[in-house]
């Protein structure tokens, strides 16, 4: 009797659990997630992709309802945190002491690196190793070979110049720039490339929707 009742109870529990799971799944799929996801996806889902779209087109990000100021603040905070980590690493790992005249010029090397890697974080690592190998090698080879230290900086400048010329030739071939052309082709393959969204078009869209954004 007691075991039977327990089984019935447990079966009811199981049924109620199944019902609850079904309810939860339907809630998840339709009633709760879909409007919030479709409405607030760009605002709350991933600040990384939002800041990337912010970097691509600020007007479009504003029109999509993204919190542009908050995203800018988040990006600046992340950038500053990374830079502070870099400074701390240089003090603790490379130099070992902090001097008042500490100015290794990593900021401008970082600009050159980001430009060389074309904003791809994975390419930053080999390029950074290459640049640091150049500078370290210039420092260590200066005495035995009689090369001035500025030769390395000249080499880096020459490299950047060659890269800029190569980028100019690449952009000259396509009207909208090399990277955008590739991504447009991947997104809507077979269609002609769309013209870039201008401010006037966005203003028209805002007026058509009644200034929702």
């Amino acid at each position, binding site marked *: 009797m007691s075991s039977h009742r327990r089984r019935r109870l447990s079966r009811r529990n199981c049924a109620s659990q199944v019902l609850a799971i079904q309810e939860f799944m339907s809630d998840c799929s339709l009633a709760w997630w879909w409007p919030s996801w479709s409405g607030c996806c760009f605002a709350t889902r991933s600040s990384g992709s939002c800041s990337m779209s912010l970097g691509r087109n600020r007007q479009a990000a504003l029109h999509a309802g993204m919190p542009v100021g908050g995203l*800018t603040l988040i990006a600046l905070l992340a950038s500053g945190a990374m830079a502070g980590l870099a400074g701390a690493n240089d003090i603790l790992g490379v130099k070992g002491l902090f001097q008042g005249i500490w100015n290794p010029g990593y900021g401008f090397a970082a600009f050159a690196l980001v430009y060389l890697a074309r904003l791809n974080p994975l390419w930053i690592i080999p390029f950074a190793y290459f640049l640091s190998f150049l500078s370290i090698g210039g420092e260590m080879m200066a005495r035995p070979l009689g090369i001035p230290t500025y030769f390395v900086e000249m080499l880096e400048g020459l490299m950047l110049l060659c890269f800029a010329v190569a980028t100019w030739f690449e952009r000259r071939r396509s009207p909208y720039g090399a990277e955008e052309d590739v991504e447009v082709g991947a997104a809507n393959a077979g269609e002609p490339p769309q013209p870039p969204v201008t401010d006037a078009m966005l203003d028209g869209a805002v007026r058509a929707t009644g200034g929702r954004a």
Partner: protein
Amino acid sequence: MNSAFVTAMLAAAMIAAVPLVLAALGEAVGEKAGLLNLGIEGMMLCGASSRSWLPTTPTMPGLASWVVSFPAAPGLRSLR
């Protein structure tokens, strides 16, 4: 120009590349969001000075100084 010299050069470059990678990564994060973070040198200086100053303060235990000194100073600097 023996192999030991080349090995020492490669190892020194490996050590020197780490802050360069971090600084360039920070710059890339900013540039992905459309910002040109020109103050990256000052942020690095802030992180370096706080990293050299905070662990030497006697009122703070070691782990707390680690936790505080990494995000706080460059974050506050970038909030300005």
